[in-house]
C-alpha cells in the first residue's frame, strides 16, 4: 500500500518533470526554427500578400486603382497569356522527362566502381550549371546562330543541307530553348542521382546478376524503384523551375519569334518593365503560376503515390 503510494508519487513526479522537459524541449525546438520561419514569412509570404492586393488593382505605373476581379477576367481572355501558358506546358512536358532520363542514365554510367576519371567526367557534366545566366545566354546565342557552330557542324556532317533557323523559326526556337535548359540542368540533377546511387547496396545488384537480370532490367527493376523518392523530388523542383522559367528565354530568344518561346514569367516581366508598367495585372499573372505549380505538384505526388501501391 505504502509502496504503491510511493510508486504513484514517483510516477506523478516523473510525469511532471517529463512534461517540463517536453515543454522545455518544445521551446528549444521552436527556437531552432524561428529565424528561418520569420525570414521566409517576411521575404516570401508578406510580399506575396502584397502581390495579392496588387492583383485586384490596375493602371499604369503609380496610378493604380482597385478594379476587383477585372484582372482575373482579363487573364482568361488574354491571348498572350494563353500562349505563354501553352509554351510553358510544352517545355514542361517535353523537357523535364528528357532531362531526368538523361541524368539518370549518366549517373548510372558514372556509378560504375571501376570507372576511371570519374571526377573529371563529373565536373565536366556539372559545369554548365555553374555558369551565370548572362554568360550562358551569350554562349548559346552564338552556338545556335544561323552561322553558329551547331549549324556548321551539322552541315559538315551532312545531316542537313541548309542552316536550321534555330532562333528565328517558331518550332526550332522552342527546341533550342529545350536544348539549352537540358544542357544547363542535367548535370545538376545527375549529382542528386549519383549521390543516391552510392547509397544503394551493391549486393542487390549482385543478387540480380546471379538471377540473370540484364543491365536494362536492373535499371528498371532496381535502380528506378530505389531512386523513386529522389526522382520525385527532382521532378518537382524541375517542374517548379520550368514553370518559373525566365532567364533562358529572356536572354536567348527574348520570347520570339512572335511569342513562340515566351514563358509566363517573362510575360510578368514584360508587363512590369517592358511595356508601360501595369503591376496589378502582372501580379494577377503571377498568381496563375502559383496555382499551376500547386496543381502540378499534387499530380506528381499522386502519380508517384499510385505506383507505390
Amino acid at each position, binding site marked *: 500500500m505504502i509502496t504503491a503510494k510511493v510508486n504513484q508519487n514517483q510516477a506523478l513526479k516523473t510525469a511532471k518533470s517529463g512534461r517540463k522537459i517536453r515543454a522545455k524541449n518544445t521551446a528549444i525546438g521552436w527556437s531552432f526554427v524561428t529565424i528561418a520561419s520569420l525570414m521566409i514569412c517576411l521575404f516570401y509570404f508578406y510580399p506575396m500578400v502584397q502581390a495579392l492586393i496588387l492583383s485586384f488593382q*490596375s493602371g499604369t*505605373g*503609380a496610378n493604380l486603382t482597385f478594379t476587383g476581379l477585372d484582372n482575373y477576367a482579363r487573364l482568361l481572355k488574354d491571348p498572350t497569356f494563353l500562349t505563354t501558358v501553352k509554351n510553358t506546358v510544352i517545355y514542361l512536358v517535353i523537357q523535364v522527362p528528357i532531362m531526368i532520363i538523361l541524368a539518370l542514365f549518366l549517373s548510372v554510367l558514372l556509378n560504375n566502381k571501376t570507372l576511371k576519371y570519374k571526377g573529371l567526367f563529373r565536373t565536366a557534366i556539372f559545369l554548365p550549371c555553374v555558369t551565370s545566366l548572362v554568360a550562358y545566354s551569350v554562349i548559346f546565342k552564338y552556338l545556335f546562330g544561323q552561322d553558329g557552330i551547331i549549324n556548321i557542324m551539322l552541315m559538315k556532317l551532312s545531316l542537313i543541307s541548309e542552316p536550321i533557323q534555330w532562333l528565328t523559326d517558331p518550332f526550332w526556337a522552342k527546341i533550342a530553348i529545350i536544348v539549352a535548359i537540358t544542357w544547363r540542368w542535367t548535370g545538376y540533377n545527375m549529382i542528386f542521382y549519383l549521390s543516391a546511387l552510392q547509397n544503394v547496396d551493391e549486393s542487390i545488384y549482385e543478387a540480380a546478376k546471379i538471377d540473370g537480370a540484364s543491365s536494362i532490367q536492373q535499371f528498371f527493376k532496381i535502380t528506378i524503384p530505389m531512386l523513386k523518392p529522389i526522382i520525385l523530388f527532382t521532378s518537382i523542383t524541375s517542374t517548379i523551375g520550368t514553370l518559373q522559367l525566365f532567364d533562358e528565354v529572356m536572354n536567348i530568344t*527574348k520570347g520570339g*519569334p512572335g511569342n513562340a518561346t515566351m514563358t509566363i514569367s517573362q510575360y510578368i516581366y514584360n508587363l512590369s*518593365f517592358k511595356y508601360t508598367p501595369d503591376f496589378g495585372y502582372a501580379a494577377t499573372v503571377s498568381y496563375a503560376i502559383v496555382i499551376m505549380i500547386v496543381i502540378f505538384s499534387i499530380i506528381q505526388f499522386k502519380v508517384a503515390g499510385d505506383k507505390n501501391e
Partner: protein
Amino acid sequence: MKKVLALFLVSILLLTACSSGSKDKQASGESKDTKEITVWAWDPNFNIKAMNLAKEAYKSENPDLKIKVVENAQADIVQKLNTSLSSGTTKGLPNIVLIEDYRAQSFLKAYPDMFQELTGSFNPEDFAQYKMAPTSLDGKNYGLPFDTGVTGLYVRTDYLEKAGYKVADLQNIDWNKYIEIGKKVKAATGKVMLTQDPKDLGLIRMMIQSSGAWYLKKDGVTPDLAGNAALKEAFKTYKEILDADLVKPVSDWSQFVAGFNSGDVATVPTGNWITPSIKSEASQSGKWAVVPMPKQSGIASSVNASNLGGSSWYVLNVPGKEKAVDFLAKTFGSNVDFYQTLNKEIGAIGTYKPAAEGEAYKASDDFFGGQKIITDFANWTEQIPQVNYGLHTYAIEDILAVGMQDYLKGKDLDKVLEDAQKQAEEQIK
C-alpha cells in the same frame, strides 16, 4: 564550435562593415543637392562618352558641381526607374536619366510628378521638330532632345557595282525599287540585302514613320492598326523582301553586327548610330556609302527620311534638380562648340539645329568614299515626319510580331491587322 562561432562573428562584422560603408555613402548622398548630381545612361561608347564630354564642357561654367555618370544597360535603367518610381521611393535615383523616345510618354504619364518640367530652360525651336512630341506632355517640355535616330540606307558600293548599279541609282528610291535591286544584287553576287531579327520590328517602325504613321493614333493612346495604310504596306513590303529571299535572319544584336562586318549583306537600313560599328571592320574602308532611306510605295505622304531609336535627357524630381537643369541647359541645350566636340570625338549627331553650321558637321569621311555623311544625316533629320510614339510602342510591337508570323504563314493581312487591333484595344486601357 569555436570555428563556427568565429565564422559567424566575422560574417556579422562584415555585414556591419558593408552597411556602415553604405552609410558613409548615404551621408555624402544627402549633401548631393548642393555639390553632386548623378546621371544614368547606357552605352559606354556613345551616350556615356557624350555625357562625359558635357561634364568637361560644363567645368568652366561651374567647377564646383560634381557630376557622376553611371553606366547601366538600357533595360536595367527602365526596370530600376519603374521599380523605384512605382514604389514612390526616390532614394538612389539619379538626377538626370536618359530615356529612349519610344518609352518617354509611358514614363511621363505613368509617373506624372516624378519628372521635372524643362519648359523655358531651352528653346524648342532649336531642335529637330520630330523630337518634340515624345519629349513633351500636355504642351510642357520634359525632355531635352539628345541624339537623332535619323536613318539611312548603308550600302556596299562594290556589291552594287557588280549588279550594275551606282550609288546615284539608289538615291530617293522606294521599297519596290529596293527589292528589284536586291534581286539583281543577289543574282550577281550571291549576297543577301539585309539581316532581320523576327523579334524586332524596327524595319516596320522605320517604314511607317517615313509616312508619318505610327502604331497609335495622334492621341498616343488609341491603337491604329486595322486600316492603317502605311502599316499594311509595310507588312506587305516585309513579306515581299522575305519571299524574294533577300534576308539573312539573325536573333540578336551581335549577329546583326556580324552580318555586315563579315560582308554577308549588301545593305543596312538603320539609324545613324550604327556608323561606328560599320567602321569597326577597317578592311571594308571605301566600300560603303549612305543613301536616303527608301520611302513607302503607294503612300503619298511617305518621304525618304525616317527615325529609329534615339533618346533624350530627363531630370527627375529629386533634390539637386535645379543644378541638373542648369547643367543640361548649358551643354546639350545651347552649346554649339560642345556639339562640335561631340561629333568629332564620338560621331554623335545631335538634334540641335544650330550645331549643323559647325565645321565638324561638314567633314568628309574616307571610309564612306569621302561622303559628307554627317551633313547628309543632318539634312535628313529635318525631314523626319513627326509622330506621337504614345504609350505602348513595345506592347503593340509584341502583338504585331505575333501577327507578322501569322501573316508570313499565309493568314490574310486585313484579318491579321484587325485581330491585332482587337487584342491591342483589349490590352491597352
